[in-house]
């Protein structure tokens, strides 16, 4: 276990074995390559995808299957692009955004999910350009 600094939760203790390495980083943040998932009862079902080496870098994320039951990503394509193994355990997280003081207007980016390979402790942010999934899928409207 070791401690990291976060802007949103102060100092927190993390398990080194749970660190996820992003060889390409998040889009726009290619230099930050190590992340951990932070869960807290008060923010379920959301989680924080926190950069280990930068306290200010924390993305709000949620399991896209909670939002869209039939959410699907082409697994074979992901495995090929990331050079992952056929039997690897892969799950997805969608990045969520909340306009300031307007939680009811929260949206989730279903077009650019993070693919997490828990077998390898590695992840990539994908771009599902022609999937028809929205960049801003509303959570509480419609």
């Amino acid at each position: 276990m070791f401690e990291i600094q976060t802007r949103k939760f102060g100092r927190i203790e993390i398990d080194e074995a749970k660190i996820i390495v992003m060889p390409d980083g998040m889009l726009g943040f290619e230099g930050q390559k190590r992340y951990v998932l932070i869960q807290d009862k008060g923010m379920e079902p959301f989680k924080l995808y926190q950069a280990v080496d930068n306290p200010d870098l924390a993305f709000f994320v949620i399991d896209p299957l909670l939002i869209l039951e039939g959410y699907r990503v082409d697994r074979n394509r992901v495995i090929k692009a990331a050079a992952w193994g056929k039997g690897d355990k892969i799950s997805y997280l969608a990045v969520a955004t909340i306009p300031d003081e307007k939680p009811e207007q929260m949206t989730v980016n279903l077009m650019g999910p993070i693919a997490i390979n828990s077998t390898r402790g590695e992840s990539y942010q994908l771009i599902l350009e022609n999937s028809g999934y929205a960049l801003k899928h509303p959570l509480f409207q419609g």
Partner: protein
Amino acid sequence: MLVLTRKSGESIRISDDIVVKVFEIGKNKVRIGIDAPATVSVLRNEVYEEIQKENILSLQGSVSDLAKAAALWTDKGKKKDREK
């Protein structure tokens, strides 16, 4: 930036495994074909920028708003249960 002139049907090779071919030249647009290995990401730049923008917006969110959103989510779940 390297700028080249190409005619329809001509192509450009980048490194030893990427080929960019001009298919059709219209008045205001060109159709381009790209041959690249599966590990190379090829995207329209707008899409890349849009997702990058969403990432930045996500960082700017506040934890108190997230807690409120979590409460809204729970309420939504309860409402759904009642409707069943």
